[in-house]
């Protein structure tokens, strides 16, 4: 292996450092019209009238669009298409788009947007999922307020609790979290010479965008071209449509280039959020620590629209036990519509929330059984041959126990810290958090494709539809191609994330691109090699079976002196030689009644250990250090994996301690706090490489796993420090102090 496990220079590194990367807002096109969205200030209302006359008088305003101007389907959504691009007769949350102003200047669009008069007839608004599911609650969508109910049943839960000698039961809640990606969404759209509508913007999935925009405009797919701009992180927030349809609608009608850039305030108001979940969790174990039963009831708030609500409900349920063997499991997971901001995909799809619950429960069980929190996890950890809660038998690459063992080695080095006489108000604690995460979409086909091409000019070109959102897929996937071809990285041209030039690889989400597209690339290269050998066989007049490809050369099994570069084969034949690749992970659909099946082809595992300091007089928590051990199968680019882990820990600190989106109150980063460099602990990343046989060179994924165990470890460390547990995230100053006061009362 020459290119795998090697820290090559990340493809985008130099441009990023030099400021040469072009983000959506950096695209300049001649003579554009600027766009501004006018939004609802009511959480739930009928639109009685929209008056545009006065706004149209504003100098520089070109046109104002409403739902009536949409030529195609005015409904978008990844699973259920329930979200209008522009509201026609009803708004469902504060921020629902109603009109789109196009003008010569940003100022003109802003002035006009303030002069649009919308008359509403307010409807009762629903603020909580509990309220939404009341029998006579006003329906937010035609099908009612229950978006999805998913049930998972394994064994007999009654029996499981009968066998239990200790039972722990609690309710955990989490709140809305913003992705806080780098740049506000911005982009351009224009018609090209071939009558194609081109949109350049940040995204996690150009082909999904293409489908949505095409049906929205009633255009054939091929007349819409989506090109991904440099994307400064996305974390799920760019899986749904953001600005694409607005750009498309205006450019479609105006036949002029258009540009728009959201303000940060808009991003906070209108981009999806992490789903707040309410998790009622009951677990039982025997005296020896073995789990006998887990019963979980999850109720989530998807807000005004479905987005990824169904995915989150199902993924949270499937992962509800944590990375442990449990013979008897019962989970009910529901998602309800409300008139709150809509929730969608965010790093982990419900697993960070459920991991907070299952890891708190594990510590509480350990406490009740007077066991070591690491020991109880080891006893229950999944291993090869284990059956998961969905009845899937794990066949390979189950590194959870290894991560626990590595963490245990580290824990031995941490000495108990005596009370600091200068700071008697400080308590220190350590906590463990483990997780598992299924790679790829849950229980459904999620194929990817790739092409590798040798041109008659001797070029080697890799075509992938994958959107690199900063995580490094461009580099990692090129490494895979480079290794498989035996050709230097820099010899391979990469064409990616452009619907005109590449085919559908599915979304950059669910930690899936390395594993799934990586395999599609290997498949493409396998097919390319076959074709190269066919061509070489006639070219060299040798039997095809005597030839093989190694180190980028066509070689002969007997004639050792023969070594023809594969590029040369294309050059000499004057043909383009193309290898088509495809991969779809082996999964089965989950049974609709019992949730049983094999939803993922492979799982990633991880354990974090957090060391914290709690000021018991103020509730201030300082995370001192996180030791983060991840089973990634195989690290194609170790530094990239480490980068993901450090970023995941940083995000986990925010999720654990401070991130809290308060609808109607949160405006921007002025009152939405994410950790700064001063708040991020030292991170010690440890890679466990329990290779996945079905993965490209053994790789799985790490994007979301990096985040998931951090908050549970931090919360367990706080409980260790103060002797009382916090059941609601984030553990902000007030909640920590309250827990300290509660602990004092109990003493």
């Amino acid at each position, binding site marked *: 292996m020459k290119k795998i496990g090697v820290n090559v220079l990340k493809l985008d590194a130099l441009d990023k450092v030099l400021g040469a990367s072009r983000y959506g807002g950096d695209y300049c096109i001649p003579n554009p019209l600027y766009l501004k969205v006018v939004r609802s200030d009511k959480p739930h209302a009928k639109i009685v009238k929209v008056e545009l006359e006065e706004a149209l008088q504003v100098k520089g305003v070109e046109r104002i669009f409403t739902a009536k101007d949409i030529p195609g389907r005015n409904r978008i959504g990844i699973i259920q298409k329930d979200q209008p691009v522009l509201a026609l007769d009803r708004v469902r949350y504060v921020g629902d788009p109603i009109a789109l102003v196009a003008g010569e200047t940003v100022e003109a669009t802003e002035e006009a947007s303030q002069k649009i008069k919308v008359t509403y007839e307010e409807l009762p608004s629903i603020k909580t999922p509990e309220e939404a599911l009341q029998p006579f609650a006003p329906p937010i969508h035609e099908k009612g307020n229950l978006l999805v109910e998913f049930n998972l049943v394994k064994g007999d839960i009654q029996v499981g609790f009968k066998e239990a000698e200790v039972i722990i039961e609690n309710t955990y809640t989490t709140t809305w979290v913003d992705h806080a990606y780098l740049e506000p969404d911005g982009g351009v759209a224009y018609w090209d010479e071939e009558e194609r509508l081109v949109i350049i913007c940040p995204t996690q999935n150009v082909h999904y965008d293409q489908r949505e925009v095409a049906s929205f405009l009633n255009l054939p797919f091929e007349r819409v071209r989506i090109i991904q701009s440099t994307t400064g992180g996305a974390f799920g927030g760019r899986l749904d449509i953001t600005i694409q349809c607005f750009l498309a609608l205006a450019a479609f009608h105006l036949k002029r280039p258009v540009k728009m850039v959201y303000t940060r305030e808009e991003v906070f108001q209108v981009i999806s959020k992490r789903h707040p979940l309410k998790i009622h969790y009951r677990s039982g174990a025997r005296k020896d620590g073995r789990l006998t039963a887990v019963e979980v009831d999850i109720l989530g708030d998807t807000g005004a629209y479905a987005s990824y609500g169904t995915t989150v409900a199902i993924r949270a349920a499937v992962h509800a036990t944590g990375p442990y063997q449990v013979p008897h499991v019962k989970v009910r997971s529901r998602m309800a519509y409300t008139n709150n901001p809509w929730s969608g995909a965010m790093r982990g799809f419900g697993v960070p929330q459920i991991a907070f619950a299952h890891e708190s429960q594990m510590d509480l069980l350990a406490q009740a059984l007077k066991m070591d929190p690491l020991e109880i996890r080891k006893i229950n950890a999944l291993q090869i041959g284990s059956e998961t809660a969905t009845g899937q038998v794990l066949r390979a690459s189950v590194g959870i126990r290894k991560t626990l063992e590595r963490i245990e080695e580290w824990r031995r080095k941490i000495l108990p810290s005596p009370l600091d006489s200068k700071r008697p108000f400080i308590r220190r604690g350590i906590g463990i958090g483990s997780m598992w995460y299924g790679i790829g979409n849950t229980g459904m086909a999620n194929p990817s494709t790739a092409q590798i091409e040798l041109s008659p000019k001797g070029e080697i070109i890799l075509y992938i539809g994958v959107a690199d959102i900063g995580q490094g897929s461009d580099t990692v996937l090129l490494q895979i191609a480079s290794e498989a071809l035996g050709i230097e990285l820099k010899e391979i041209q990469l064409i990616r994330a452009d619907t005109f030039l590449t085919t559908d690889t599915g979304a950059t989400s669910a930690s899936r691109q390395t594993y799934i597209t990586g395999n599609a690339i290997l498949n493409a290269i396998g097919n390319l090699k076959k074709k190269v050998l066919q061509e070489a066989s006639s070219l060299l007049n040798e039997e095809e079976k005597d030839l093989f490809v190694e180190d980028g050369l066509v070689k002969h099994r007997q004639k050792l002196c023969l070594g023809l570069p594969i590029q040369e084969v294309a050059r000499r034949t004057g043909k383009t030689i193309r290898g088509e690749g495809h991969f779809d992970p082996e999964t089965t659909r989950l049974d609709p009644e019992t949730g049983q099946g094999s939803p993922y082809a492979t799982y990633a595992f991880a354990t974090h250990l957090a060391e914290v300091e709690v000021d018991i007089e*103020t509730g201030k928590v300082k995370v001192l250090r996180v030791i983060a051990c991840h089973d990634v199968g195989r690290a194609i680019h170790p530094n990239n994996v480490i980068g993901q882990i450090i970023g995941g820990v940083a995000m986990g600190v925010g999720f654990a301690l401070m991130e809290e989106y308060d609808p109607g109150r949160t405006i921007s980063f002025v009152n939405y706090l994410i950790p*700064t460099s001063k708040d991020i602990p030292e991170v010690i990343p440890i890679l466990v490489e329990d290779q996945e046989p079905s993965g490209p060179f053994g790789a799985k994924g790490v994007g979301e796993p990096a985040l998931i165990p951090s908050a549970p470890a931090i919360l367990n460390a706080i409980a260790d420090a103060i002797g009382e547990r916090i059941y609601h995230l984030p553990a902000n100053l007030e909640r920590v102090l309250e827990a300290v006061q509660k602990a004092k009362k109990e003493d």
Partner: protein
Amino acid sequence: MIPPFQYKIPKNLKEACDLLWDYREKAKVIAGGTDLIIALRNGLLRPEFLIDITRIAELRKIEEKDGAISIGGAVTHSEIAVSPIINTYGKILSEAASQIGSPQIRNTGTIGGNVVNASPAADTLPPLMVLEAMGKVVSKEGEKEVPIESLIQGPYRSTLLPHEILVSISFKKLHPHMKGSFIRLARRDGMAIARMSIAVLLQREGIRMKQVRISVGAITPTPQRMKEAESFLEDQPFDLERLRVASEKTSSEMVLRSGVRPSTSYKSPVVKALVMRAIQQAFENLQ
């Protein structure tokens, strides 16, 4: 969108005073702008002129004169944080300045701006209050020197008239036996508005506390001295029970000034703890 304005950069104080005299309410002084620009962007202010006073040499100096330290209104927080003079004679102020916002904010924001912006959470005000600082205010009509407290009228309201400039802030060099402590609590360690700040100065004579000065930020409508707690401790022996009573007085004063709010149940025990902690630390600093 920031509304249009004309930007004036006077080279000296006289020019600045003349401009302000001419433009009055149409003008706003900008001395860093870390709060002003946000107010402009949010449409809260729409001045026709911005008068940038940060290029006036007189306002950029830190000086030691006649037993007092004088800091120009346009001196940045970064400069205060590293100033040897302030670190020697008014350490509590440089400590507070070093904790403001982020390096970018500290490099841009100024002490004069921090005072005149009059935020309840202004980081330099509690230290300036315990230092019993005076502000020198200049306009075309003349100049005056007033206690720092009297520059603050209410939350985000200073008593400066539109044509006046806070030229400098001065305080007497601290007696070497006078020590202080500054505690700032925020939801995160960088780039966060203070949730609470406490500044304490005191002197020690044997076991007794003298010249006790306590001020708080972010818990009352404007930062203020806690006179009742101060006089309760003045000339008294240092003991924890006494500190506890004094800290309770601070908390009562907070409730009196701010009323009972949803945040009171959190702030009340915390302000007590931090006042005690600040006094203890100041006292220990004297050992």
